[in-house]
């Protein structure tokens, strides 16, 4: 039964573009593609959930058609990520039914409804592929479709430059992934995952390290780990909101899936420095992601940088798992892996919620700059509440889903102290400090976002007249928020099957007892907090609305509130060395030098990976190319000379070879 649904899931995703083209005209039929996509995502979620909980394997084999073996198979790991894709895909589709309606002309909307299902299909292909060829096809198509979806929003000079960088880095990452697949070839007889899994054990360590490093770089580029994160803050903000929600929440997870599949499933762990490398990358990504997010005031760029931070946290979990495997205590490695996978699911949920929220806010206030917003919670009640739940989850406050996975990562860090070697028993607990710092900074950053955007006085006329968004958008966001809270309070739902999955991967019988104690106590704490709140809130209190106290001045206006830049100013001075910001303050004096008419302050972050790492590499290639161009002199004699030199060189080569 599940197999039939899975096949129909794939087929319907393929034909939706055709459906969009067919029923562009009809008034009634206009919603067919979107509803079809919604239905398909729900079906996909059901299939994935069943296969994830019950663990039954689905398989599709199309090798007869394609020149290389092309087969899909859904084991627990694939099912988990397929569930993630569809669980986020359904609300995003629901959201974009009305979002696309308002934002885009008929032509562009058709393009979006044609490309979105293909984008979801390519991601599903990546996670369920069981041969290298299928995986790589899905991998490249995913990039192409996401680029096409970004292009729907227009093609100004800046956008084109961003898409150019995005495609180039994705292609380079894909090359690394292809290389890591092919390095199996001399040992594995075929390119399907089973053969690779078999061959991995017998390979020399040099080869395993090469494969690990290549897959780390390849999947790191797609996941957005710090040295390769350049494209993420450029590509996500310029995509349409539902698409950037899908990209940020789900596409990054396909990279996590690939990395887990390679390091844990095929290679099965390795020397301890693998773990340290992943931990280091995770820590740096986490910290830099947050610190760069603090300086931004474009809502979608902030969320993009937070994706880098959360991917960093996931890599911290994976790194701990690798360290535990290297110290051969697989039980705790399984716990760390569960923590990382749970955080990917949680991140998918709350990040898509936040991006949809950003979409709703930008649709209501026609701007994405939080300095122009303010007081939206009053005007857009549900979006406000839902965005608040998203913020609480991403910070990792208890009773929300972010906390559960961060708690588990902390738990495995503490457990790290019991390892034998001096180095690992110090490194892991100290990483807990890094994660705590990341959590603290995240709290500050989201306090800024929510405080500036949703609370206080409206800072611009558009924010003034903002009204609540359409019903489907609200329900989509509410759905995601509900799932965040449910996982936050009853984590057992997801943690137990994940534990079984981790056991399969780590080949350990059962998990240590203290690992998931939190999932039993959280409901109690939720009940206790709820009880206290109800009791206190119950005290009837007479409230009187009065204008805010303005120290006796006639009236406060919105410019007197703290702006986003002002809010993050203290933290930015603490981490000044990271930004090396160049600040410009110019003051217009009504009557110099005493009475200033206006003061404008602008501080721009100067450190950027693009200038220090990528720009020199590109310039190097262009210089070599321009020098090579001079070889084509246009003079025929020189061409003939080339031929003779080649001939003589070969004769000499032959003489001595």
């Amino acid at each position, binding site marked *: 039964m599940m197999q039939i649904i899975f096949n129909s899931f794939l087929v319907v995703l393929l034909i939706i573009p055709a459906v969009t083209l067919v029923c562009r005209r009809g008034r009634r039929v206009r919603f067919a593609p979107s509803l079809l996509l919604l239905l398909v995502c729900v079906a996909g979620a059901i299939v994935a959930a069943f296969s994830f909980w019950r663990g039954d394997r689905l398989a599709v084999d199309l090798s007869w058609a394609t020149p290389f073996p092309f087969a899909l198979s859904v084991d627990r790991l694939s099912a988990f990520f397929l569930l993630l894709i569809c669980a986020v895909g359904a609300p995003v589709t629901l959201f974009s039914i009305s979002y696309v309606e308002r934002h885009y002309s008929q032509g562009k909307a058709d393009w979006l409804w044609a490309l979105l299902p293909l984008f979801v299909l390519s991601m599903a292909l990546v996670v369920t592929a069981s041969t290298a060829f299928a995986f790589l096809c899905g991998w490249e198509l995913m990039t192409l479709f996401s680029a096409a979806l970004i292009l729907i929003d227009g093609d100004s000079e800046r956008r084109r430059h961003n898409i150019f960088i995005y495609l180039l880095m994705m292609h380079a990452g894909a090359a690394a992934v292809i290389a890591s697949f092919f390095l199996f070839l001399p040992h594995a007889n075929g390119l399907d995952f089973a053969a690779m899994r078999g061959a991995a054990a017998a390979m020399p360590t040099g080869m395993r390290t090469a494969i690990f490093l290549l897959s780390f770089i390849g999947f790191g580029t797609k996941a957005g780990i710090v040295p390769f994160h350049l494209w993420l803050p450029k590509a996500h903000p310029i995509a349409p909101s539902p698409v950037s929600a899908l990209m940020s929440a789900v596409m990054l997870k396909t990279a996590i899936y690939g990395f887990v599949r390679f390091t844990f499933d095929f290679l099965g762990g390795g020397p301890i420095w693998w773990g340290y490398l992943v931990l280091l990358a995770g820590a740096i990504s986490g910290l830099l992601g947050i610190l760069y997010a603090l300086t931004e005031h474009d809502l979608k760029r902030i969320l993009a940088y937070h994706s880098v931070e959360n991917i960093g946290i996931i890599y911290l979990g994976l790194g701990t798992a690798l360290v535990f495997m290297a110290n051969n205590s697989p039980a705790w490695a399984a716990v760390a892996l569960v923590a990382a996978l749970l955080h990917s699911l949680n991140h998918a949920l709350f990040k898509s919620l936040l991006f949809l929220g950003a979409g709703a806010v930008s649709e209501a206030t026609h701007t994405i700059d939080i300095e122009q917003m303010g007081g939206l919670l009053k005007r857009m009640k549900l979006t406000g509440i839902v965005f608040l739940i998203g913020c609480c989850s991403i910070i990792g406050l208890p009773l929300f889903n972010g906390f559960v996975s961060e708690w588990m990562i902390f738990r495995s860090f503490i457990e790290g102290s019991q390892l034998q070697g001096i180095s690992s028993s110090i490194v892991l607990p100290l990483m807990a400090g890094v994660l705590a710092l990341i959590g603290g900074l995240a709290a500050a950053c989201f306090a800024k976002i929510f405080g500036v955007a949703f609370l206080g006085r409206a800072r611009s006329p558009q924010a003034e007249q903002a009204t609540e968004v359409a019903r489907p958008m609200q329900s989509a966001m509410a759905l995601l928020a509900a799932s965040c809270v449910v996982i936050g309070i009853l984590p057992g739902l997801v943690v137990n099957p994940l534990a079984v999955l981790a056991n399969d991967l780590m080949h350990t019988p059962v998990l240590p007892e203290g690992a998931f104690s939190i999932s039993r106590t959280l409901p109690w704490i939720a009940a206790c907090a709820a009880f206290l709140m109800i009791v206190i809130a119950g005290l009837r209190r007479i409230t009187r609305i009065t204008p805010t106290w303005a120290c006796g001045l006639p009236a406060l206006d919105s410019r007197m509130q703290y702006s986003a830049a002002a809010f993050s100013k203290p933290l930015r001075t603490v981490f000044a060395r990271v930004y090396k910001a160049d600040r410009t303050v110019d003051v217009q004096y009504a009557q110099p030098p005493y009475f200033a008419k206006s003061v404008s302050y602008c501080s721009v972050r100067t450190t950027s990976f693009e200038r220090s790492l990528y720009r020199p590499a590109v310039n190097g290639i262009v210089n070599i190319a321009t020098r090579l*161009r001079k070889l*084509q*002199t*246009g*003079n*025929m*004699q020189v061409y*003939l*000379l080339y031929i*003779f030199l080649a001939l003589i060189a070969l*004769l000499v080569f032959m003489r001595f070879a």
Partner: protein
Amino acid sequence: MGLIELAAAKALASSAVFLFITLLMMAAAKRISTCIVLFSIQSAIMAAEILGMAYAGKSVAAYAVAALVITVKVIAIPYALFRIVKDLKASQDVSSSTTGAQSVFIMAGLILLSFFAVAPYAITLRLDEDLLAAAVALLLAGAFLMVSRKKALMQVIGLLVLENGIFVAALTTTYGMPLVIEIGIFFDLLMGVFLMGLFVFRIRDTFEHLDVSKLRRLRG
């Protein structure tokens, strides 16, 4: 009869020397017309060699090839080249990028080089060493002429010398290649030269000069 065969074989060997001499003179030549005359002499020597081999090997095919070489390479092509030079009233100067002395020395070096290059092969294949050396020398000389001379016509002459070299190489195999192939190759070279002539006229019309080194518009 043995004496005559011996004489013919000796004639073949000495002819290689004459070829070397024509090459050196061509390197020193300043005017295009002298190069054309030297080219026709060279082809005549080659024809003599073919006749010698035909007489020694008693193969009718060789006679036909010799007749072909004489009619085309000794008479037809030089006549056509002279007419082009006269029609175009182009300056006779060869406009070489290397001075006369340098050219001669380079040409001599190339001849010596061809002897060393050929050495390992001649012994194992029991071939007539100097003929094979002459072939390689002609090849390298043709290449050198094309690279160093700037005039379009001199490119054509350089190419012809190069093809002479290949022709002589074909001769070193005892009876030359199957006749049909020989004629085919010959005909192709003729067509090649004819087309170059056509292009020389085209260059004349569009560029008003014949200095090939000035054709430098297409770069990068």
